[in-house]
């Protein structure tokens, strides 16, 4: 049984969780999110309804997924709580729009020898990638070590169906990882306006993190 932690249950993380439970009904899934459902979340997250506004996002989604193997953790992923919250996850999935949380996921994945999946969406575009620390390029390799928070969706806007496409590509990376055949690193660029995904391959050796240990 694979253990997956999804951090952030909004447009990308929630869609990934919905697809994951269909793809792998036996998966053990932890949903981590400190936030409450807001009206502005509803157009990108059809797993929530108007009646859910004000309730914790992770807890409502866990209830909707209706599986005993789905656990909700209504908490923020902070560096000092990473071990506690991510626990024994085999793979961590980024459903946040927060670079600090991504740094935490990357650091935890590298320290524990785990893979993680990055997702982001803004406007009509998105990005996803599977990172195996030490084996693939990392966030710092791709975006620089002094990476800064860019605009949020409440500033630039976003469309839920683009987030769905991002989550779908991310689920494809998950399936490839699960098969043990993810291939060379690829940065998947989702172009909602053009209706296509471009993959940028890179085999740069990462100077920031040591190679992964064997999966537990």
């Amino acid at each position, binding site marked *: 049984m694979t253990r997956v932690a999804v951090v952030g249950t909004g447009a990308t993380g929630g869609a990934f969780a919905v697809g994951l439970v269909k793809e792998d009904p036996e998966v053990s899934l932890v949903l981590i999110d400190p936030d409450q459902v807001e009206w502005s979340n509803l157009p990108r997250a059809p797993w929530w309804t108007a009646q859910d506004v004000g309730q914790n996002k992770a807890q409502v989604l866990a209830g909707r997924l209706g599986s005993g193997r789905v656990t909700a953790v209504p908490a923020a992923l902070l560096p000092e709580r990473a071990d506690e919250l991510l626990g024994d996850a085999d793979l961590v999935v980024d459903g946040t729009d927060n670079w600090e949380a991504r740094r935490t996921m990357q650091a935890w994945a590298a320290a524990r020898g785990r893979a993680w999946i990055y997702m982001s969406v803004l406007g009509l575009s998105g990005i996803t990638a599977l990172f195996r620390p030490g084996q693939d390029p990392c966030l710092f390799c791709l975006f620089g070590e002094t990476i800064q928070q860019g605009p949020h969706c409440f500033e630039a*806007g976003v469309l839920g169906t683009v987030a769905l496409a991002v989550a779908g590509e991310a689920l494809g990376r998950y399936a490839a990882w699960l098969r043990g055949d993810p291939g060379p690193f690829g940065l998947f660029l989702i172009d909602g306006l053009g209706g296509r995904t471009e993959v940028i391959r890179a085999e740069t050796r990462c100077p920031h993190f040591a190679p992964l240990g064997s999966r537990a």
Partner: protein
Amino acid sequence: MPLSDRELERYSRQILLPEIDDRGQERLLQSRVAVRGPAWAAVLLSQYLEAAGVTVETHREPETHPAPLTVEGGGRRWQASVPAGTGAAMVAVGYLGTAVLLDLARGGESA
């Protein structure tokens, strides 16, 4: 009809997109479409279109892959092929839904 304060709050993230704007959101809220295709993908697409403000009638068909997923409404028709595999199906639904929403929001205006 102008958007209410609750609608402006609810749809704010897509109204921020220049491709939609408040006029496009008004058009989405007035749009009606029919979705037809393999059940899981058809329901998923319908849920996203409804969440964006569109009124949807869903016709679920047996799960065969690849299979056509179609959307019809306002004298227009959109179609995609839904491949096997959950992730690939989500990608196809996401791209088709995006095209439908942008076209409906644009109405009869040029891109």
